């Protein structure tokens, strides 16, 4: 690690957070490179958080043209069609984010994230994907895993007033202080594909119901060829059928995935901004932890539901069984 000092400007700007995580962590942050794909409310919150924290660069990927729905939880783009000028969501967000912190390089990468080759991801330390299909999640995750260096991979999605984060740090070694001595800890993460393939019956009963519900919806969208979030309550009967099949296959009681929860997730296609702020905040914190090497990173799922107000970590990995 090079010992170069932070500039006076950086010290002044980051004063309050250096008091939280220290100068070394700040230096590491300023050398890190992050890719985000799928710019809905939660990811926009995340982008704000890491740009403020002072990462080295942030690359935005989302070619979709701006729509009202896309902007419902977006505070980066003013709702003025005259200003869109045929630009994509990523391009419009980029202009705003640059303004937040002139010390962070914010750029746009056009294209479909699932089509980028392995080498493309080598440029990044952290990759976050959102609003994409199950296949894309698996694919990008696998590409990140093929690289010789560790690229931290995250997925994040919010539906109605619920949110989910998945984390794959592969094998993550970090040191933490236990009493007087520093001990080395190793966390082994499964890929997204391996994690969700874990038999449900091998999971603890207290696993958040959201975990199962999100898997059902994900499978439904995949099977129907829907875009993420392209659902409504009209889909409930078919989703319930799928739930029955999955529960039977996994020997899980259907009561573990309540109808009401599935109905909420299907209907709530519009983002709920407080949940975006919360989930985007947790994700930001996790990414900062991993880049700075400070603190215990979460393994490997996080769930938030505004209905009960709990923010829960679930460990869904092979190593626990």
């Amino acid at each position, binding site marked *: 690690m090079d010992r170069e000092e932070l500039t006076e400007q950086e010290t002044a700007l980051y004063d*309050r957070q250096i008091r939280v995580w220290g100068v070394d962590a700040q230096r590491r942050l300023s050398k890190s490179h992050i890719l985000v794909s799928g710019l809905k409310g939660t990811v926009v919150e995340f982008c704000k958080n890491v740009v403020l924290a002072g990462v080295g660069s942030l690359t935005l990927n989302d070619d979709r043209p701006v729509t009202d729905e896309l902007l419902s939880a977006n505070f980066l783009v003013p709702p003025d069609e005259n200003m869109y000028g045929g630009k994509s969501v990523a391009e419009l967000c980029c202009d705003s984010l640059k303004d937040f912190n002139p010390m962070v390089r914010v750029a746009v990468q056009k294209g479909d994230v699932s089509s980028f080759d392995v080498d493309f991801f080598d440029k990044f330390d952290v990759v976050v994907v959102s609003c994409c299909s199950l296949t894309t999640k698996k694919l990008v995750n696998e590409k990140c895993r093929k690289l010789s260096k560790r690229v931290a991979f995250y997925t994040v999605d919010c539906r109605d007033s619920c949110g989910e984060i998945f984390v794959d740090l592969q094998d993550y070694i970090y040191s933490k202080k236990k009493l007087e001595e520093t001990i080395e800890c190793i966390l082994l993460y499964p890929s997204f594909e391996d994690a969700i393939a874990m038999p449900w019956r091998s999971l603890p009963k207290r696993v958040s119901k959201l975990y199962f519900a999100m898997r059902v919806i994900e499978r439904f969208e995949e099977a129907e060829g829907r875009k993420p979030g392209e659902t409504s309550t009209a889909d409930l009967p078919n989703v319930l059928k799928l739930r029955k099949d999955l529960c039977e296959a996994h020997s899980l009681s259907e009561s573990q995935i309540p109808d009401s929860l599935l109905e909420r997730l299907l209907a709530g296609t519009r983002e709920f901004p407080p949940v*975006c702020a*919360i989930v985007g905040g*947790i994700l930001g914190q996790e990414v900062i932890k991993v880049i700075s090497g400070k*603190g215990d990173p979460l393994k490997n799922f996080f769930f938030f539901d505004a209905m009960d107000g709990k923010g829960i970590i*679930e460990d869904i990995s092979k190593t626990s069984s």
Partner: protein
Amino acid sequence: MASDLSVIEGAKLLMVGAGGIGCELLKTLALSGFKDIHIIDMDTIEVSNLNRQFLFRQSHVGQSKAKVARDAVVRFRPQISITPYHANVKDPDFNVDFFKQFNVVLNGLDNLDARRHVNRLCLAADVPLVESGTTGFLGQVTVHAKGKTECYECQPKPSPKTYPVCTITSTPSKFVHCIVWAKDLLFAKMFGDKNQENDLNVRTSDAASSSEHAEDVFESKKDEDIEQYGRRIYDHVFGYNIEVALSNEETWKNRNRPRPVYVRDVLATELIQQNGNVDKDLVAGDPLSVSAMASLGLKNPQDVWSLMENSRIFLEALKLFFLKRQKEIGNLSFDKDDQLAVEFVTAAANIRAASFGIPLHSLFEAKGIAGNIVHAVATTNAIIAGLIVIEAIKVLRKDTSNYRMTYCLEHPSRKMLLMPVEPFEPNKSCYVCSETPLSLEINTKRSKLRDFVEKVVKAKLGMNLPLIMHGQVLLYEVGDDLDEDMVANYEANLEKLLSELPSPVTGGTILTVEDLQQELTCNINVKHREDFDEEKEPDGMILSGWTQPPAAEKDGKESMGNGASTSSASQAIPLETIGDDDIEIVPVVTEGVAPERKRKLSDTSNAVTSDLSSVEHGTSSKKKPQEIDDDSDVVMLEDGDSGISKKKRLR
């Protein structure tokens, strides 16, 4: 959640604070569809805000937070109405009637004083309050609804750390003691109001009655230049005063003896003569840009300077104050954003620390301690703001049974990073929301009304515009509409002993103290008491009837011996009461709740069981993340074939 839209759109909100939490909150409220938001903040924008108060830019530095925040949010939600007030929430304009127009009040404040004030106005106006605070990765959101949940003051709040006078003036054992000395005594003496009582002064004149030290050493002499003056002050406070202290053998029986430090011992002659390059230096314009570090070529605020470097900074900073900021001398008070003041205090504290064998600290660390800077990051503020909006919506829907107090934790507790807890019921002995009388032990023959007003009415009761009555006799009152005779009368009363007031206050007297703005009345039963312990009861009076902050007594004891340092991040956060916009305090999280009262849990289902005491401890210290207890891994799985439950232990 769509069904909430009508309550959201019809609501009128008051936000107090447009800082770290405020910026995030205003953004999230606007996105959530709120249409009528009023926001109060007296502060202006500073550079150190920009790392998290994302509605502000470099170009906004110096402007009103409330106004800039409004402009920034209206840009992405032009159709909503945001009314900014660049004002202090304690201004009389913001009275009970003002508060009554809102459906809910949301606090994003940075100090105890304002929080208490808003709490009282919300109680008086019967408007629910959503209170919040963050520090580092910790945060908390609470709903205070009159008669339904506890008010902000139902539980004791940790009071600001205080140190016994002798620890500061004579026997410092920790760096923070040196900082307090440098900031509150030396800096105040040199650059603040000369007429103010100051223990540094007392010690100086006490020390020698006949010698030159009997006169005010801080007055510069006719024949000395600024360099000579600086060196004389240096030798006096770090050399002579230590020698005087050393002469009191009793003090050092069980302590390490300090070492007097004189300029000649620390700086070589040539350095003494040409310290810094202030005369050649080009600094002009903004007086806050004057810097001793810059003129001495020291760059890194993270470096710990040697005694020599500290001495050079001390002399240089002192000189710069007199040469570049002469006009302000006599009116300055320490400000953590005043570079030269921070340099002076850092250097003075370090020289004193060196003298007492206490480890030296960097300017960065010293600034944090001196300015009581609380660690702040954007993510926690964003999360807390989201939780505030969720609670605000419940308040608007009158969904009382679902109100939650939520903790944002750094390390998971029982798998949770965000932990909701059922709110407390109001405390029946709370003097704020239950009108329980208080009792005051005081020496009525030796204490003046002024002591009572300063130490009880303002400091303890947090009143802004107090009125004090004994029976039907008005003893004291504050307000704009008083005529001159009355003001003079009250001024005279302030200087009178309690027992000699027009209506004498003695043991058994019941005083009524009222704040007309806060619409709060308390009755205080006065008990006369002759003596108080100077160290343990420095106020010379004791107010009881509401639980005292548990930390207060402990601090007093600790600072006598090995007091706790405020520099460590794992430490309980020092509570700041002077207005500092960067302080976002979590009183309950950082201090833990009153241990005898157990919080009920929000969810009886199963995931969380009892024992929340461990949670609160977990938030107050850098504790290991708790392993999810083994029991939680005992799972009941329904077997698809037999339908019979069986237990399976994982791991």
